[in-house]
């Protein structure tokens, strides 16, 4: 398998560039419906990267929840709020250029920091299984797990109560 590693990392880099490109299109394209499609590509690319990082369960969750559920919601909302086929409405505000400049500044700080930091990487990378993950969720992290379920329930009820039209 060792002689095969270069090909895997080439695929990884290609995937990273696809994700970046799709994300740039998502935040900059005027047509919001197409932005949603490119967001779907971004999320799928991220799921692919999870596969390469040996986090299979997270990858499946990413596809099931993000691509299957959240994207459907987003496209629904885009459609229900209408008028997106109108190309005359500007989609970005006056902060566009300042935001870009400031973010360039932030990256000018962050990237040298990343390059300088002494990362102590492992000799043999970790990998875990879905079964171990389940044990962690039901053992060590059972309290956050229950809290998250409660948050989900509240969000469910809240979303229904908010979106319902007043009779």
């Amino acid at each position, binding site marked *: *398998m060792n*002689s*095969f590693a270069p*090909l895997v990392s080439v695929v990884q880099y290609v995937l990273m560039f696809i994700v970046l490109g799709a994300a740039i299109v998502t935040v900059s394209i005027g*047509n919001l*419906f*197409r932005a949603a*499609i490119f967001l*779907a590509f971004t999320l*799928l690319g991220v799921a692919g990267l999870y596969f390469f990082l040996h986090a*299979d*369960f997270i*990858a*499946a*969750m990413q*596809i*099931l929840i993000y*691509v*299957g*559920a959240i*994207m*459907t919601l987003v*496209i*629904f909302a885009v*459609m229900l709020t209408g008028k997106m*086929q109108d190309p005359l409405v500007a989609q970005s505000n006056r902060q566009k250029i300042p935001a870009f400049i400031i973010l360039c500044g932030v990256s000018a700080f962050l990237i040298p920091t990343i390059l300088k930091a002494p990362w102590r990487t492992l000799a043999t990378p970790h990998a875990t*299984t*879905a*079964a171990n993950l389940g044990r962690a969720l039901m053992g060590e992290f059972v309290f956050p797990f229950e809290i998250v379920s409660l948050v989900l329930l509240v969000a469910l009820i809240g979303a229904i109560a908010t979106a319902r039209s007043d009779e």
Partner: protein
Amino acid sequence: MDQLFVNLKHSILIFAGNFLPEWAVILISILISVTAIAVFGPVTMMYLTLLERKFVGRIQNRFGPNRVGKWGLLQPLADGVKMLTKEDIVPKGADHFAHFLAPVAIVIPALLVFAVVPFGRNMVAVDLSIGILFFLALSSTTTIWIFVAAWASRNKFSLLGGLRSVAQMVSYEIPMVLSVVPVLMVVGSFSTVAIVEAQSGWNWFVLTPWGLIGFVLFFLTGVAEVNRTPFDLPEGESEIVAGFHTEYSGMKFALFYMAEFMNSFTISAIVSTVYLGGWQGPWLPGWLWLLIKSYALILVMMWFRGTLPRFRVDQLMGFAWKFLLPLALLNIFAAGVWLAFARPVNYLLSAIIVALALFILYFANRPDMPKKRVYRYAVE
């Protein structure tokens, strides 16, 4: 016989290994698996169209296609030529990019799920540790592309079909995932190969009380997921022209059709893997058993199409949320009881739970019938 295809691939690889480096052999191995799937998927789809037309024809007391070739065997090729040469029409107001993208993107998950179907002993393309979850996740992405196709067409019938499709698939996904949970509890693994191996020696999960219910649930929600009759509201011909693919013609339409048929094949194969013992079976080779079981389920789907009328939208939603979902939850409980007790008792207990659940849900879901009127003073 059982290992025919495995041995074939193996001998090709050994032959290639004589004069190629290691990485090239791995590459060839991947290429062989990919090619096998990429050929098997579309060919299955082509002949499923013929099978469907023949079978529904028989149900309706006619012959079905019988002009092209013996028994109409060349009909799929003729259809293919027709599809390829047909004019590709894109509506004027359509979003061209999305209109093109949707049919292409919908085929990809349909092909990818073939990777985790265990066609026989050692005959799975990749034995993912999350096999079943991979299948469920990928089949859920189909929704988006149907919706994109519907919205991009700028047609009210398309949009209606797309909305119906999203509502239906989101609702049926939940009981579908829950109906697999009992099997995952018993096997303790997501891997499709492990699930099949847990059913060796006639321990098919369909032969347990919770397995029977789970099998029916999984199959019904699977039929709903691939939008087939009686759940074909997204493309109901008599109501909304053709639903989300109203504005598609030629090869793009063929791609939608291909995705639908490949999905119905994979759903049958996965249902037989999870509940009907996969490739396990006496006498015949394993891959033949899997094909027999899947085609039996596909014929049941076609039988549905030939005999059942279409659901109404409210009935469809009520069926998913008020009947299938609670039944799936109670079924998980039954499987837990089955796991907790010893051999003869657990069958009895889980059978009682399942029977009670069915009974209660049936009575809770009875349609509200008006009382029979008694005419007291209008006798004569």
